[in-house]
């Protein structure tokens, strides 16, 4: 048939370069590997199981946040209120358990945290949908609102004595190591929330209609609406999903820290967004992957946690992290561009 010739894909089979261009998260993965190797060469202590486990547990809260942010970015929005959601849920819930229901089992506490976050997230989604304004703006508003509610009406006192079941959850260990100097390193149970959430997110995005609807909305919301993807549902879902993950992250944060500090978390949102963007999701929506997001989170965690190990003095640490973000982004963009010239031309 004469028809087939106009199909560009049959002519050139996707090679390695092509794969790289289509899956920008592979670039971050390479970057991650390069950094790890470099650090390990400078200080072999980096490769000790203890250090890796520490890295893993340090990534949990950021990771949970990041998966939610990824969902929202994929739908073409952005969220800066998730830290406030986490702070509000975790503090209100800890207070509730302490004062009202001290015997509440941990599983129920986790469920309530997720539910609380989901409700707050759904408020975001509802506002974004009904006000028809860029999500960034709405969520700046709700960030102030949620944080204001927390600090003005719920409380500012640090809760140092957690309910025992929460302390136990924070301490319960999955794996134990004893290092040379007699120190023990533990991988706590709560670490599992991150991979579990990642798998759940992957399932939603790749195996349900909702995942495709989210990408569709991120690609072009008007078109998605016309094709029958109910925008209200999509908005409510992504924001509620991100809210639920934020609620979970909040309570994990409390249990891991063994204190509920209402001033915590808010202020870290931009870093989380950076992690997701480094993971290959574009700020304009409709792109990204769970794998990339996890890679981005690991990348940021590693960079933040090896500064002392590598021997960078405190004064220089911000310069190094800032320069790293810029270099990584530049590397990322130029790689993508080099590998994609034909595709870009065609898209014109």
């Amino acid at each position: 048939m004469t028809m087939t010739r106009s199909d560009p894909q049959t002519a050139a089979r996707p090679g390695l370069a092509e794969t790289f261009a289509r899956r920008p998260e592979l670039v971050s993965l390479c970057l991650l590997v390069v950094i790890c190797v470099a650090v390990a060469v400078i200080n072999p202590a980096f490769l000790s199981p203890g250090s890796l486990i520490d890295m893993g547990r340090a990534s949990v809260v950021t990771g949970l946040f990041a998966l939610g942010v990824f969902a929202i970015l994929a739908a073409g929005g952005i969220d800066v209120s998730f830290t406030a959601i986490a702070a509000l849920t975790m503090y209100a819930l800890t207070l509730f358990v302490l004062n009202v229901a001290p015997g509440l089992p941990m599983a129920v506490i986790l469920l309530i945290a997720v539910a609380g976050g989901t409700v707050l997230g759904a408020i975001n989604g509802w506002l974004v949908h009904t006000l028809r304004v860029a999500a960034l703006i709405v969520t700046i508003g709700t960030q102030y609102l949620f944080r204001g509610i927390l600090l003005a009406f719920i409380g500012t006192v640090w809760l140092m004595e957690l309910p025992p079941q929460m302390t136990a959850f924070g301490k319960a260990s999955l794996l134990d190591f004893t290092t040379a100097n007699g120190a023990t390193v533990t991988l706590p149970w709560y670490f599992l929330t991150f991979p579990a959430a990642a798998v759940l997110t992957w399932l939603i995005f790749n195996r349900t209609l909702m995942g495709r609807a989210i990408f569709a909305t991120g690609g072009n919301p008007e078109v998605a609406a016309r094709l029958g993807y109910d925008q209200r549902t999509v908005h409510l879902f992504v924001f509620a999903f991100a809210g639920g993950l934020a609620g979970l992250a909040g309570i994990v944060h409390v249990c891991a820290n063994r204190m509920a500090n209402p001033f915590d978390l808010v202020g870290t949102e931009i870093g989380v967004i950076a992690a997701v963007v480094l993971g290959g999701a574009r700020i304009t929506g409709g792109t990204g992957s769970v794998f990339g997001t996890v890679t981005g989170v690991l990348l940021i965690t590693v960079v933040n946690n090896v500064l002392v190990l590598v021997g960078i003095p405190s004064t220089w640490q911000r310069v190094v992290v800032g320069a790293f973000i810029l270099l990584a982004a530049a590397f990322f963009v130029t790689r993508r561009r080099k590998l994609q010239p034909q595709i870009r031309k065609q898209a014109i």
Partner: protein
Amino acid sequence: EGTITTVVKISGIPWFDRMETGVELFAEQNPDMSISQVGPASADSAQQLQIVQDLVAKGTDALAVVPMDPAILEGIFKRAMDRGTIIVTHEADNQMNTMVDVEAFDNAEYGAALNARLAECMGGEGKWTTFVGSLGSRTHMQWVGAGEENAKQHPGMELVDPNNESFDDANGTYEKAKEILRKHPDIKGFQTSAGNDVLGVGRAIEEAGLAGKVCLVGTGLPNPSASYLDSGAITAIGFWDPQKAGMAMNAVAKMLLEGKELTDGMDLGVEGYNSVTLKDGPGEGKLLIGNGMVLADKDTYKDYLF
């Protein structure tokens, strides 16, 4: 008859909640005056500056301020004093534009005392490191500076990777402390400065199963530190009672409002400030130093429940 407003670094945190109890106590003792405490919602010197500026504009008679960053407030303090507002500060012994700066103790002595306690625990030997809230925090730098000075008496003590910034964030401190424990498996001591540092470092030590093996001495409050003190993850905490400091500031402000003279060795009527030292400050103002230093450990912290 006269308003005194206390402006703290940040409202809501335990330290300044404790200070507020002092301010309230002082208000009860002086029902004819209008006395209150305010502070910004986040740790940002710009926000504190705004509050001070609005209070000056509102016509408050006296301000008792715990500066987030003394330098940033110099300008507004000067203008306020030109306008006749009474300015008293706390934890700012380098403040140029203040009438009186109230210090609970001599900073160098405090830093040396913390370090002496640490050295005792370490047996005068081994690697140790220091944490400060931020490199710009003058008192913290004074404390660790005095600590370093003190450590020189013990040739066996080796300072490694000093002056880590904690930003008074327990979680960040925890991560950093873990990293240090990893980099220096043989580390023996931590001297910390900001109020939350002991919590973060203490947790790292406890989780590593090193409680009692690694020494930790730093500024902290008894209540939050209790469990770590009990487990031995924190060796000792040093502090002064913010309640008393708040009362002392307000007492000084009241005296200035009434036009009274401050003298060396006088009694402010507040515990720890019964015989204060009065010196010339860095600027026009005076430096008023009490003896409110407290070092507490496992056995003694229960005497200070706040």
